């Protein structure tokens, strides 16, 4: 199964199954040091692997990038790093 941030590209390629994230390129599993979010993406993809039956299934993980960024700022502040 695939994770994708480009639904139109994935639709063109016609993969068997994919998890779509409305996030930027290079951030398919979220933001640095946000372990819970990174796990959530993987587990959602694995659930899709177990559940999907129709070729071309694209499932949304409805987490807005704006919310991810807000969480990232607090995560990186805890880490003492600049976002």
């Amino acid at each position, binding site marked *: 199964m695939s*994770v994708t941030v480009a639904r139109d590209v994935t639709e063109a390629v016609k993969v068997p199954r994919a998890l779509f994230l409305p996030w930027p390129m290079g951030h398919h599993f979220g933001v640095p040091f946000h372990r819970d979010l990174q796990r959530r993406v993987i587990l959602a993809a694995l659930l899709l692997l177990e559940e999907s039956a129709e*070729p071309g299934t694209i499932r949304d993980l409805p987490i807005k990038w704006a919310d991810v960024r807000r969480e990232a700022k607090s995560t990186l502040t805890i880490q003492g790093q600049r976002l």
Partner: protein
Amino acid sequence: MTAADKTPAPAADPREAGTQLRPGLWQTINERYPGSMIRKESFVSQASLSKPLAKARLTLISSCGVHCKTDPPLDVCHPFGDFRFRRVPSSSKQRELIIHQLKYPHDDADLDLNVIFPIERLQELHMERRIGSLTPNFFSFIGYNMDPERFERTVAADIADAVVQQEHADCALLAPA
């Protein structure tokens, strides 16, 4: 009705709307690099997982261009792309790996590789027995190439063969960068 009423509402900010951040990406790239994008006419058949995930062996395949620091990097400057791949031991630590790619922003992934190549998260899920096992090696290559047909014939076919015949994977997580 005022002029303001006739003005179409601005498109919702995709960051707030939860839609694709760069809409029309396939078309944009295909115009910039004609013929570089893949479009298939039919779906790949969907294979079911033959065993519970807790007993399955998983591999990770990514176009993020990560490799072991002890391995030479792939060629990111070749105008047609580098049609090779690198094996990344699934037991690797972040400090042993490096991203060598120019075609996507990896500033955040340089801080924490799990942003694009979640090797540590997969190691944890295996230790927690959520995933039966990990293949000894994961796979990485450069996503940029100008000949998708050659790419399918070489990199994609070679990785698929290695995943099935050498690594004996039951399933694969694909992470295009």
